[in-house]
């Protein structure tokens, strides 16, 4: 682009800018716009998360029922069953903890 073109472009800049002057800021328009903003959904968990948590809860309860029904008593209680119980409790704590920590973060 040579200097003649640049000068012509500059002239066109001036002409068009004078044709459309800078409008004054409109605080009323800003206020009205902000008043019209809708509240966004404050849903804590998305639908896939809700489904996942529900399935986990059902599975957890089912496993507890199976475990208590098949649990031996007294001297028959062996180390494997105790480990199984602890693992199941730990898993329960982990997923409940993830829900509560998310809720706390959102609050």
């Amino acid at each position: 682009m040579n200097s003649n073109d640049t000068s012509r472009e500059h002239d066109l800049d001036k002409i068009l800018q004078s044709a459309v002057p800078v409008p004054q800021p409109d605080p009323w328009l800003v206020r009205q716009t902000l008043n019209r903003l809708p509240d966004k959904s404050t849903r804590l968990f998305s639908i896939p998360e809700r489904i996942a948590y529900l399935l986990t809860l059902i599975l957890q309860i089912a496993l507890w029922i199976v475990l208590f029904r098949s649990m031996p008593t007294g001297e028959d209680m062996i180390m494997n069953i105790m480990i199984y119980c602890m693992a199941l409790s730990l898993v329960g704590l982990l997923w409940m903890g993830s829900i509560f920590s998310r809720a706390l973060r959102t609050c």
Partner: protein
Amino acid sequence: MLSKIEQVALMARCAAFDDRAAFARLVEEYEVPLRRFLMGMGVDYETSRDIVQETFLKMWINARSFKGLSSPRTWVYRIATNLVHDHFKDRGTEDTDLAQVTNLVSIDESHATESAIDARHALSLVDEYDRRLLVLFHINEMSIKDIAKITEMQQGTVKSRLSRARSLIRQKLES
């Protein structure tokens, strides 16, 4: 005027925390240039206010879909451009041409110089797509790169169409 980084940071606050104060700052930043763009496009005063509000509402609602690949400024202009296009489409082409002349000429006739009035007439006679490029480049002083993002065209295409639009408006101004 906010820097690009400040604009992106405000946009991120809107997306992550629905921060209304951050959004208010963005609205204040873009309100005047957007209205000037709409006036340049030939949209009347009342409609330009409606379109500006509609643009900001869309921006707020879709804040979470903003990926940060372009600046928020470019994004807000793209929304406004689409809304203006829809507005012209709804009104119909024949109606638009006549109305645009009237709207542009009635901006502020009392203070306008003769060359400004001529320029408004010339601008109103240019086709909507070319006018969009002229207004964004010469009035809103945007770069070719940003215009390409707003109009979703290649930079080369923007340059060639802009050059053609300039020749066209010069012809109209000279005649």
